[in-house]
Every structure is written in C-alpha cells, then in structure tokens.
C-alpha cells in the first residue's frame, strides 16, 4: 500500500491529494523526517517509525500558519488542489532559507504543478510569508 493511500484511506487525512500517481505533480507532497517527499512514491511500510507531517499538521490550535494566510491574501490558489503540496514545499524552503529570492522560490516549487494560478500568486505568497515569518509572525 502506498503511503498516500494509507494517509487518505486508513487515517482519513484527505488533505494530501493524488494528482497523477506517477510522481510528477507533487500534489501528494508531505514531510518525512523533516524533508519533503512525494507520498505516492513510497510504500506505507517503508515509513514505519518515521515522523510524518501532512497539511493537517501545518496549522495549530485552529490558527492558520503564516504561509497559509499569505496564500489566501495573495491568491496563491484558485481550485486549491495543488495547495497542500505547495504549502509543504514552501515550508521546507523557508526552514532552510528564510529569505529566498524569487528564483529560489520558483526552484523550490519546481516539483509542484499548478494548473490554475500561473504561479505568480504562489510566488508572491511565499515571499510575503517569508517576510512575515522573519518579523516573528505566526510560525509554528
């Protein structure tokens, strides 16, 4: 059983999406032991005793993460299908590089396809979130 199917069907954590199921689209991106991976390219059994973060764990105490707020404010989404993966990839970038350039943001979300936005809103949102997080905004 694939990890993405285990998350969605067994744990009923349906925030992690299946876009292509061939490892191309990035909709199923999660963090495994603090790094982003595609959960359609892993078997659930391989991740025994691992630390997994899905979109459900990004917000805390009913409050959105700075990144999620920025996606809302800057139209970083339209249909929302790619958004969980986009958020996880952006989160990984900002943990490693708190002040990324536009090119660095584009490279970081290279593995996440979006068919609606044209990416401009997403890049804007990540930039805005980075600024807010550096200034000590919500960053859990």
């Amino acid at each position, binding site marked *: 059983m694939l990890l993405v199917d285990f998350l969605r069907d067994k744990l009923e954590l349906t925030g992690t999406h299946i876009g292509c199921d061939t490892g191309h689209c990035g909709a199923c991106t999660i963090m495994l032991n603090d790094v982003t991976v595609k959960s*359609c390219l892993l078997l659930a059994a391989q991740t025994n005793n691992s630390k997994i973060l899905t979109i459900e764990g990004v917000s805390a105490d009913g409050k959105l993460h700075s990144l999620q707020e920025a996606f809302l404010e800057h139209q970083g989404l339209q249909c929302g299908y790619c958004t969980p993966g986009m958020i996880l990839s952006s989160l990984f970038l900002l943990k490693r590089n708190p002040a990324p350039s536009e090119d660095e943001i584009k490279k970081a979300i290279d593995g996440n396809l979006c068919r609606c936005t044209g990416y401009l809103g997403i890049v804007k949102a990540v930039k805005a979130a980075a600024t807010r997080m550096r200034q000590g905004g919500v960053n859990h």
Partner: protein
Amino acid sequence: MKLRLAAPNALIDINGITELSYIREENGTIAIGALTRHDELSRNKIIQEKCVLLAEAANVIADQQVRNRGTIGGSLAHADPTADLPTACMAVNASIITRSESGSRSVASRDFFRDFFTTALERDEIIQEVRIPIPPPRSGGAYTKLAKGHNDLALVAVAAQASLRSSDVCNAISVVLGGIGSTPTHATETEKLLLGQVIDDRLIREASLKAAEGITPNPDFRATSELKLKIARTLTERTVKTAVSRAHGGS
C-alpha cells in the same frame, strides 16, 4: 516501478542502513556512500570544492522532493542514459564499489554501464560506495544539461573535467555526453583534440564540433538524432569552456 520499468516480486528496503550515507575524503579519493541523497551531494562542501561538476549534476536532478529521497547508488544502478549522475560520475572517473555476500569489488564507471538500464551488477550485488579520485590542483569541472522544462530528464547533457599543468598545457581532459547513446559516452575526438594543448576558445570551438563524431544519437520522443547532435556540440563548447576556466581559477 511506477513507469512499469520493473515489476519485482519482492522488495528489500535498504534505507535503514544509515551507515551507507556518507561523504568523506579517504586516501586521495572522495568516498560517497550508496545511500547519499542527491540533496546532500549538491550541498556538500567537499563535493562543491573538489568535484563541483558532481554537485552541479545533483542539483539539477528532477525536483526538490526527488533530490531529498533519491540516492547516488540508486541512480547509478538504474542506469538511465538520460540521467545526470551516471554521466557526471563517468567524467570524474568514478569507481563503483559493489558488495555481495561473497565480498566486494571495484568497477570503473566506464565498464559499469552496459546498455539502457543495464549495468555490470550481478544479481546478488548492490552498490556500496562510489569512489572518485580527488583531482589535482589546477583542475576544473562543469555539468550542463538541456531538458524540456526544469525538472525533466536530459535531451543531452555534458560533463567536462580538465586538469592543467603549470604551463597551462592540458594534461587530463574528460568530456562525457549523456542522453546520446544507450550509456554515457566519452566524446573521444573532442578529448583527443584538447589533450596536450594549451586550450583557448578557438580550440574549444573546433574540438566541440567533433563532440559526437562517429556517434548517431538515439532519437527519442524528445528530440531527433540531428537535433541532439547540434545540442551536443553547443553544450560541449559551453561546458568545456567553464571547466577550463575553473581549472585556471584553481577550483
């Protein structure tokens, strides 16, 4: 497996063998454990300083999620001729250390890749380590690829590594093409023209025109044979230029 290239009856996950993930200098070589991730390879100081073409190749593999998970051992064992690390490893004359129940052996990368997705690995062997001789001072390397989109496999890729004497004469040169044949392929005519010469831009241009001499590139759904030849010549010129200029700069 997702692309149905392999359909094994059973899988053994070796990701738990954390001892196989390392990069260290050892007796004039860089030793890289088979489970070293592409992301680590692209950001490691030793690789960046002493074997920069490998860092450059690792940095353009697919996307961040794949670089976080993919390993050098996995990439070499898979032996996709359009993949980045096989081409890069061949250009720096890497040896592949294999391991089986009966012991280990070392295979030169130029003997390791046999055909499309086919290597010198025996059925009971896995890759344990990749070993790269540390280039002498006044060496430089570069890796360039052209692909359809940022994260696709290469149409054509070129890895070049050059060493210069104090007199600026080139005493070692390696130019390897990826995406052209069924395995990474040395551009032997180009190498012959550059070896033993004081290399300038004109010579690089002349030598690059011979980059795929005697080779008919495999056409695929990405590009025709003729287009691949043209790309190979252009990329060879750019990549050798960068490698030689880095050799002059001492990096």
